[in-house]
């Protein structure tokens, strides 16, 4: 098995066959017995993109554009096209993604299947809200044109359907008008969560994009830096603009011991202290604004061969205390996370049946895998989230228990009616056992 087919967290390590899908108009060729699962760029952190013992339908060759209307911003493309390729084509013509996750190296199909969200969730909702239609190819050869009004159950089940309802061959996306790649950006230091919520409420009025980096490694857990931004207007187009082009590749796996309580604390301290003023406003290129980590290709190797776990949950907005409790639980455990992202979600509802984002506050964390204690900590967090009536994000998960998944997503029984009988994933088997 080619080892390039893993999840982004590189945990768990499993083996599966790979079958490339190249042409959207051709029938699917399926293996005789075992199950299949679409696999795009492998940016899902956990095992929603893995199918141990089965076959992956590699969709990266389904990367043709079909139609683009420069006047209306309507883009039709195959499901293996990446968001980076869309930006490359459309941004110079004045169109931007309606919403974008923190990496542009994901496919359109993957973005739909995980119903991804971005820094503008409070204004735009999830990615699925901007998908006007798509074609779903089922294992029996049936091709369903899914829109909010035709095959609407499949439309709802496939958006956030984790690739289990069939293969998305192409999709139509409504892009958003912008005038330039430059962004107004502001970064504001906050000292605790109360201040975070104040800044958040204020900046959501003024800014389309908001999110915060939060320190959760020390006694100072809860301090951080709030980032917000807007696209510039037509009148503000700068005469000259330097486009950043440098990317670096993480050339090797960092040994596991390098990321520890002390090094992560030091990083967090330095990251917080780097900003000398309370607030900095400037013009920023969209690329570092939206995709700071994309500048380091294969940054997941920072976590070494054993991989890492990503954890993201959302809890209702009223409850600030639960966020504080969770941060304290993490800080007390000594298992630190240095990429902790905090954001408030708005109340725009996704059409996706199993969609994760909902009104509330969301926190995303990375954990290097340090044996059983890491898993125990996350299970404790699962219970805290459940008690607070929150949910955990499947796209990032590799270890959630069936009990908790089914408690978070009671609609999964309804969803399972639309699962294609030949499609499966490690995630599905794990949370429905």
């Amino acid at each position: 098995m080619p080892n390039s087919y893993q999840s982004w967290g590189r945990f768990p390590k499993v083996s599966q066959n790979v079958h490339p899908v190249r042409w959207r108009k051709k029938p699917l060729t399926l293996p005789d017995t075992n199950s299949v699962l679409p696999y795009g760029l492998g940016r899902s952190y956990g095992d929603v993109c893995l199918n141990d013992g089965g076959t992956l339908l590699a969709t990266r060759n389904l990367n043709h554009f079909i139609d683009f209307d420069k006047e209306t911003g309507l883009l039709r493309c195959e499901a293996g096209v990446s968001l980076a390729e869309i930006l490359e084509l459309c941004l110079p013509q004045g169109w931007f993604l309606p919403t974008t996750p923190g990496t542009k190296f994901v496919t359109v199909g993957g973005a739909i299947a995980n119903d991804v969200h971005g820094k503008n969730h409070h204004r735009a909702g999830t990615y699925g809200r901007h998908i006007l239609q798509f074609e779903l190819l089922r294992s029996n050869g049936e091709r369903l044109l899914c829109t909010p009004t035709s095959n609407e159950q499949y439309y709802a089940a496939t958006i956030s359907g984790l690739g289990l309802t069939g293969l998305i061959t192409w999709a139509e996306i409504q892009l958003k008008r912008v005038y330039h790649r430059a962004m107004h950006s502001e970064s504001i230091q906050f000292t605790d969560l109360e201040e975070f919520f104040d800044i958040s409420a204020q900046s959501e009025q003024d800014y389309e994009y908001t999110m915060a980096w939060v320190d959760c490694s020390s006694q100072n857990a809860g301090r951080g830096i709030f980032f917000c931004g807007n696209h510039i207007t037509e009148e503000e187009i700068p005469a000259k603009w330097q486009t950043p082009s440098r990317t670096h590749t993480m050339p090797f796996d960092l040994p596991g011991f390098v990321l520890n309580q002390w090094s992560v604390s030091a990083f967090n301290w330095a990251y917080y202290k780097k900003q000398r003023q309370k607030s900095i406003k400037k013009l920023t290129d969209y690329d570092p604004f939206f995709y700071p980590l994309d500048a380091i290709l294969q940054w997941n190797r920072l976590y070494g061969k054993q991989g890492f776990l990503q954890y993201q949950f959302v809890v209702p907005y009223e409850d600030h205390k639960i966020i504080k409790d969770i941060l304290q639980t993490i800080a007390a455990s000594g298992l630190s996370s240095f990429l902790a992202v905090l954001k408030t979600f708005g109340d725009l509802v996704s059409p996706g049946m199993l969609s994760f984002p909902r009104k509330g506050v969301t926190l995303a964390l990375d954990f290097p895998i340090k044996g059983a204690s890491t898993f125990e900590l996350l299970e404790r967090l699962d219970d805290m989230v459940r008690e607070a009536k929150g949910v955990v994000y499947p796209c990032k998960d590799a270890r959630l228990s069936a009990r908790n998944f089914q408690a978070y997503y009671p609609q999964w029984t309804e969803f399972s009616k639309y699962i294609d009988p030949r499609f499966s994933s490690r995630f599905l088997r794990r949370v429905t056992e």
Partner: protein
Amino acid sequence: MRKILIIGATSAIAQATAKLFAEKHHALFLVGRDADKLETIAADLKVRGAHQVDYTALDLNEFDKHDSMLEQANTSLEGLDTILIAHGILDDQKAGEQDYTKAEQALRTNFLSVVSLLTPIANRFEKQRYGCIAVISSVAGDRGRQSNYIYATAKGALTIFLQGLRNRLQSANICVLTIKPGFVDTPMTANFKKGALWAKPEAIARGIYRAIENRKNTVYLPGFWWLIMMIIRHIPEPIFKRMKL
């Protein structure tokens, strides 16, 4: 604006190269076996900015249709100045060793069909006194070895044919480019175990694009294959024949 004919347009390398031409707003005519695939690629290239894209479906083993296809491309684009020939099959060496007809088929597709195409193209370009002929050969053609010598024979013959053609067309100001890719991660090689020497079709495409723009004669892609093949070519035959390559 170039007027480019791409033969074997559904191959991964040809597609990636066509994208680069489309982004620069050139006009393209695509030839391949499968009309559905060509339609998909043509739509993609138009969205990416191609000035014009047309296509025709043709099995290139039907040599007698080469002339009419060329005429069609020429009419559609109102002239031709760049040809990229990218079709080919990776034949089953073991089957070809046992059955001559299989070897013959591989030689027809990988070598003779290109001769059949290049004969009228070369004459046309020689007359108009401008143009570029780019053909995908292979590093395999640099030396015969037991694992794929039928494929290598076709590619080696192709390389020599192109050398001769380049020599002949030099005075007519025609550029003849021999492209020698190493291991490329394409659907043609989907079942091979991949190592550090493998390149993506997009990287090969960038090399082809540059070589066409710079009117090169021969390029190894990626460039380090020049060194590898230089070493392989210089291993003395008494040693080479004992090696398992």
